């Protein structure tokens, strides 16, 4: 049998000798922030995420001052020092036929920590550089998707009728459109025509904006549906009727009444979307239609690692681990944010 206990906030119960005073009210956002701060798991997630971001952006520092290797230039004939001995970065295979050229495996030292790839580049340093691209694209496209989807979802759910129909069908169109074809043809166009020029904006094939925008747009329908569903539900609630009775305009209804109540849905979805977009970027880069050289991303490194999977699995494993850690941290943070924003958090259900 369930029972519930009411736990008042400590500050709200009077201690001995205290008198009740008028207390300035605290905004729900400040309360939420404080709850979030106290959530250790969420804070751990935030710290981990910030750590990954920091480390990725310090990639040049690692490459130049710690590892003393090059993550960007091919180094096929280079040598490096392991345990005091100078070895070739890419070594000829053994056996009676002497076939094959293998990059060195993990040295577990500062240089070539997890080994080299087929071009003799330091994979550990490269993973850090790749993090910059993947994070930028993942976060950027998730934000684009959520922003656009929220707007469209609000409009569709609020106005219903023909507007809703039209927007929902537009979403169908986008969702059904073959994304891979779009990505292939777009990258082909950009490669063969030296980029697009719109006034001052120049986008060439290696710009990170291309995958960001493509991925952002294709996930709009994915976020729009649950948002629209929430808007439809919230629309029927009493406080909306109350606001209408007060004579609120449509704008006010949408932005002051409905939006705050569905925003938590979007905020909960945001970290999940970043996870999805990072993975989509990996998939597109794996098919060579995402991030283009000279940029690297975790996806392109996994692609490089496919060709080395049987002999040097770390080249594919390392970026995968980075993806897992990033997504994990974002989700822990996201859970904390959701818990913090829940206006009913004062009431705790206990079994």
């Amino acid at each position, binding site marked *: 049998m369930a029972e519930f206990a009411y736990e008042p906030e400590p500050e709200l119960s009077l201690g001995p000798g205290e008198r009740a005073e008028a207390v300035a009210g605290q905004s729900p956002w400040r309360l939420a922030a404080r709850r979030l701060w106290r959530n250790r798991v969420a804070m751990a997630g935030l710290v981990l995420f910030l750590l990954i971001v920091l480390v990725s952006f310090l990639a040049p520092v690692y490459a130049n001052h710690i590892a003393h290797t090059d993550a960007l*230039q*091919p180094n*096929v*004939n280079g040598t490096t020092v392991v345990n005091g001995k100078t070895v070739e970065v*890419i070594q*000829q*295979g*053994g*056996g*009676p*036929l*002497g*076939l*094959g*050229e*293998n990059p060195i495996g993990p040295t577990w030292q500062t240089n070539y920590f997890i080994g080299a790839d*087929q*071009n003799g580049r330091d994979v550990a340093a490269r993973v850090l550089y790749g993090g910059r691209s993947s994070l930028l694209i993942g976060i950027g496209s998730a934000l684009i998707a959520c922003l656009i989807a929220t707007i469209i979802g609000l409009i569709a759910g609020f106005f219903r009728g023909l507007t809703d129909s039209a927007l929902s069908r537009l979403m169908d169109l986008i969702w059904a459109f073959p994304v891979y074809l779009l990505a*292939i043809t777009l990258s*082909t166009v950009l*490669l*063969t025509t*030296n980029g697009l020029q719109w006034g001052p904006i120049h986008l060439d*094939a*290696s710009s990170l904006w291309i995958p960001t925008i493509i991925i952002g747009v294709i996930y709009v329908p994915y976020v729009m549906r649950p948002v629209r569903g929430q808007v439809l539900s919230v629309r029927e609630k009493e406080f909306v009727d109350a606001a209408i009775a007060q004579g609120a305009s449509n704008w006010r209804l949408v932005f002051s009444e409905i939006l705050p109540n569905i925003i938590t849905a979007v905020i909960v979805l945001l970290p999940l979307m970043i996870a999805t977009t990072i993975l989509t970027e990996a998939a597109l880069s794996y098919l*060579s239609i995402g991030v*283009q*050289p*000279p940029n690297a991303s975790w996806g392109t490194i996994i692609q*490089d690692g*496919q*060709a*080395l*999977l*049987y*002999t*040097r699995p770390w080249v594919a494993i390392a970026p995968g681990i980075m993806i897992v850690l990033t997504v994990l941290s974002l989700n822990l943070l996201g859970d904390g944010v959701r818990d913090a924003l829940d206006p009913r958090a004062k009431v705790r259900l206990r079994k």
Partner: protein
Amino acid sequence: MIKASRFAILGSVAALALLAAGCGGGGGSSSSSTSSTSGGGGKKGGTLNTVANAAPSGSPDPQINYTLQEWQLLIMTHDGLVAFKRVGGPDGFKLVPDLATSIPAPTDGGKTYKFTLRKGIKFSDGSTLDPQDVLSTFERLFKIKQSPNAGTWYAGIVGADACLKKPETCDLSKGVVIDKAANTVTFHLSKADPEFLDQLAVPFAFILPSSTPDKEVQIPPAGTGPYKWATYNPNSQIKLVRNPNFKVWSADAQPAGNPDVIVQKFGLSTEAEVTAVENGQADWMFDPPPSDRLTEMSTKYTSQVHINPLTAVWYYAMNVRIPPFNNLKARQAVNYAVDHDALVKIYGGPKLATPTCQILPPNFPGYEPYCPYTKNPGSGKWTAPDMAKAQQLMNESGQKGQSVDVITDTIEQDKAHGEYFVGLLNKLGFKAKLKALSPDLQYPYVQNSKNKPQFSWSSWYQDYPAASDFINILLGCGSYHPNSNASPNISEYCVKSTQDKIDQALNTQVTSQTKANQQWAQIDKILVNQAVWVPMFNPKYLDFVSKRVTGYQFSPQWYFLLDQASVAG
């Protein structure tokens, strides 16, 4: 990936033993076959399971398809009037009579060839071979309109130009004169063509039953070979089964096959193919194995690996008409700076490729080792890059700071080569960027001068052992078509003095091959000095077979002879 889709190998009538020195790369290795007794030996029975990543691209019609993959199968199901001897080793370039009783010497100034057909040869559909089939086959070559070389190789047959203009009503009865009673076929050419016999020995000219429809077919029709096509589904597999009507008439031309059934299944990635062959689930893989498996293959499966040399070259073509490579010093600088060892390493190591500085491959008519772009030149072999000289030339050229697009395709290895060159060009002072296009797009793209390709990857595998096949096709004026995506002269090089020398060598070839070879060697040197390319290396061919496969033979013409291997017992 073997890029050669064009495999008409026309053995030069002088038939130089091209691969005599080439057989068996490196001592002690289990590489190619020795030239054995011609086929037919070996235990019969069983199914040869082969795998390939994809079906041979293009139509399966034998008169249209131009891929090695399908040609390796067509030689087992069909025959021409003459054939390349079906053995491994240098003898594989010799022509022997196949459906004809003997190879005639041409008469009438080289314009007439009279063949007598063998009697009693049956197609797999039961019909008997007669001269009408030969006439119908050649008329069909024009009627189907899509045969890639109808307009070039077979256009010399009398009546062919009318056929090219109006294919539907093609009538070659004046050019291919048949006599049913005497069982003979006489070819009349409009002018002498020393390569005509070789053109008869490739699948375009394999004889089909006269009942074959005049439109493109979805599976090769009945043939005279030891096998017949049972299934052709490009999304799943090809299946060849024994032709019950086949009897051996010449073991040199068309020996009996050993396996009862030959299957080729599609779809596996090259990594999965290697695993399948190692596990015994497949007997041979068509595609070259990925480089990361090479060490494993050469240590644990040594006896199953076969390496054979190829007369082929990989190169980057520099566009000599637009900056920066319209400047000779800039071109030479790149040649001095390139580290061929690094390129070879990316390809799989020195056992799989040999560095080269020139156009013609080793063991080719007209080949004389020549390499000026190395430290301590003079031996003809490349030893090491000369960066100092390269930088000096760059400074003199005034091309520093120019932006260059390095155009290659998205295949892992090619991309890696491309990235190497981007790094190299940047080191020399250019501003280089990589452009990796999908393989289907890249080749036509770099041929089209409209796209202004500055530095493009390409490769060339011989069609037939003649220097003209490399030099004239890849660097001759006749191969440069501006604004067309069918212009094999990617460098867009056309200099009158060089072209005159090429034409002269072609003429000399008719009378003296040796003199012509000397002239070709000179032209090769001129082209190298002009640095029209950055030649990379000459690749080798690697076959990986399963443990139970015996009797491996490598023909210089058809590569691994599938039906001469055994899987039984």
